[in-house]
């Protein structure tokens, strides 16, 4: 009889466990026991979430934080953002989709919860990135820019190019025998944007107007071609990263996420400021992505106190420091840069320097169509050898057509 009872208990336990496997339900404001659950969707690595979880433990047991990793976060949010039963209360993601969700009317301005003056502690560029149509929709946590990296086995600190012409001379001298002086994803808009922005051109301006046929954009792409000629033809993400990490390329422009990987492989990797473009006197100016917390409207209206407490914990400068230490993130909070832990971090400080000339990635919905159009334009020019001005005109028309169809 005892065995039967045990079996029944196991079955009940199993059934109970399975009941817990239901879908996200962040609806309602408070559970019967007075606790509030805040569900946060994200797409981040474990080290980052571990820091946030640990920090937010201070709110337990009154506020229970649940982080849910979503590989298809942006699409899922488009589908369920309006459904309080399926949507999260907040999501932790890059700023560039803010416009899409603000237009869907699923986001609450952060200033509905945190007074605007308290956001003065954040870097201006991160607040600019978080702003859409004059409303701030994101609490910035950290930002990312591309960095100029070099392998010290091949490139001495004294050889690091300060200008693009120095970079070109270095490439000419060292691209031989199957090794490359410099590689980058030359035909990927996110990477080529640094050159275009540095020339004063643009892929899409803040009014949602494409700038592929802008004279400065064309000049940038034209100038960039001579560098492309000294790189491998195929330069998608894996190829470029592998060329650099396996010691077949001396230098690259890549994201900070590359650094732990190459260091683990034993590379003595150096990080330097972006070379200054000789033609314009300004550095290569890559896009800046700001990672932060966005609050969904339903949560802002129904769980305002809990949401505010979560945001206030995440505003503490120590969070930025711990994220920098855990994953090399550059804090968005200016106060972090007064602390020794940050000041002594070579990579974070290089990102801060690059961020001064970086351009926040456009956060308006029109950017969605620009990635493909700009990518095809760069492929036509860099890989198919087509005329830059003609390709730019064609791409501009295509972009305008697609944006018009979005209206």
């Amino acid at each position, binding site marked *: 009889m005892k*065995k*039967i009872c045990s*079996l*029944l208990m*196991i*079955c009940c336990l*199993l*059934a109970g466990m*399975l*009941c817990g*496997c*239901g*879908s996200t*339900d962040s609806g309602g404001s408070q559970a019967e026991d007075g606790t509030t659950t805040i569900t946060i969707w994200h797409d981040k690595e474990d080290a980052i979430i571990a820091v946030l979880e640990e920090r937010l433990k201070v709110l337990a047991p009154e506020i229970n934080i649940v982080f849910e990793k979503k590989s298809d976060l942006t699409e*899922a949010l488009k*589908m*369920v953002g309006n*459904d309080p*039963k*399926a949507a999260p209360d907040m999501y932790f993601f890059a700023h560039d989709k803010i416009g899409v969700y603000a237009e869907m009317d699923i986001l609450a301005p952060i200033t509905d919860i945190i007074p605007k003056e308290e956001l003065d502690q954040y870097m201006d560029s991160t607040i600019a990135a978080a702003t859409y149509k004059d409303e701030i929709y994101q609490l910035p946590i950290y930002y990312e820019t591309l960095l100029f990296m070099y392998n010290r*086995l*091949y490139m001495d600190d004294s050889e690091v190019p300060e200008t693009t012409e120095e970079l070109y001379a270095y490439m000419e001298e*060292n691209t*031989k*025998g*199957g*090794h490359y002086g410099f*590689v980058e994803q030359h035909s990927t808009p996110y990477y080529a944007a640094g050159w275009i922005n540095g020339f004063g051109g643009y892929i899409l301006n803040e009014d949602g107007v494409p700038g592929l046929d802008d004279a400065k954009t064309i000049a940038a792409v034209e100038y960039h071609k001579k560098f492309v000629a000294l*790189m*491998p*033809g*195929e*330069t*998608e993400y*894996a*190829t*470029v*990263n*592998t*060329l650099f990490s*396996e*010691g*077949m390329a*001396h230098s690259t422009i890549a994201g900070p996420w590359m650094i732990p990987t190459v260091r683990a492989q*034993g590379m003595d990797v150096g990080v330097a400021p972006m070379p200054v473009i000789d033609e314009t006197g300004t550095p290569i100016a890559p896009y800046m992505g700001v990672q932060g917390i966005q609050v969904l409207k339903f949560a802002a209206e129904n769980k305002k106190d809990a949401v505010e407490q979560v945001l206030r914990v995440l505003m503490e400068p120590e969070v930025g420091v711990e994220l920098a230490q855990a994953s090399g993130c550059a804090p968005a909070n200016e106060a972090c840069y007064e602390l020794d832990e940050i000041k002594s971090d070579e990579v974070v400080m290089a990102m801060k320097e690059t961020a001064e000339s970086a351009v926040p990635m456009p956060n308006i919905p029109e950017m969605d169509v620009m990635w493909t159009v700009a990518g*095809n334009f760069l*492929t*036509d020019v860099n*890989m*198919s*050898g087509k005329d830059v001005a003609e390709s730019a005109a064609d791409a501009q028309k295509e972009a305008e057509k697609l944006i018009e169809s979005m209206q």
Partner: protein
Amino acid sequence: MNKWMKKISALLAMMLLVLTFIPTAVSAAETGSDEKVAVYVRVPEDWSNPCVWAWDEDGTNAFEAWPGEEAEADQANEGWYYIWIPSWATHVIVNANEGEVQTDEQILEGKNAWITISAADQVEVSYEQQTTGDIPEYVEKFVVHAQVDESWENPCIWAWSAPDGTNAFEAWPGYALSDDGDGWYSAKVPVWVNSIIINANEGAVQTEDISIDAAEVWVTVDAEGKSDFSYVDPNKEEVPNITVHVTAPADWEAPCLWAWSAPDGTNVYSTWPGEALEEGDGWLTKEIPGWVNSVIVNANEGTVQTQDISIETGKDIWVVVTDAENYEVSYEEPTTSTAAVETKAADATEEADTAADVTETEESNHTVLVVVIVLVVLIAAVVIVMAVKKNKK
């Protein structure tokens, strides 16, 4: 029932054991690090160019091929040679005369060791320093391969660091390259070297200064001393061409193939979108070099395309493209293209259902939940009935 419980307990215990073992295995792998130890050898007079062959207890070799790596003469201690080996390589054989003479296997303790060899079978290992002065620092090295003209005898390498001019070897003509027996000679040089000269005939003939990266490199030299080099092994076996077979969606006009080798980025075609696929035996086909490991099928002048498709080198492939996001690769001709059609149909249905799926997540989860609970209860009931019957017996 007791038997069952015992079996379940044993299974749980095994799982626990495996779980406990995982961290141990990981830490063992982690400690198999880059740490090096010095092995000094003193060999009989008739043993020339002593080498050390080393491995660990699992049989992992420290060096690529027998006879291992040549030990370097210690200038400060005549008669002694030294070599740095990974600390995990605790099993060594010292050999010389191109592997013709050798000791028995010696088991070391993973720390600096001095091996005195009086004869092949008379070996003494000591962990007390037998040499005077400091042990030379470990310097990482890379291999320089050289292929020289027949008229070049006893080729040597001279190596230095520019512009400071630090030399890797004491005196010109430098270090004698060893004959690898395949028409190539080789030697190792320190990673701080960035300039070399290949010379021969006691330094009477030589190349110009060659600037290189600190990476394994193959240098070819003609009779006049003109040189060229590559960081890619030119001896790599040539892989025969392969044929790519493709079926593309009906609305893809003029399908093309783009092909390259990752990660080096060597393209087969100079410009996108590559070359047009040709009509063949029910498939669109294209012959491409066997070294290709990545392809993209595209059409409509490159405006539609698949993702990067990774393929195995040297094998004919059949690619069934159903749309820009979906494709299937096989290394044998599929018997029918029905599968592809089915995949496409399934994908279309899936896409159409996606929105509904998301909004109906809760409902569908509940249905699954009910089914699972019913199943669990049914299984439990069967188990209980069986147990009761067994108890009655």
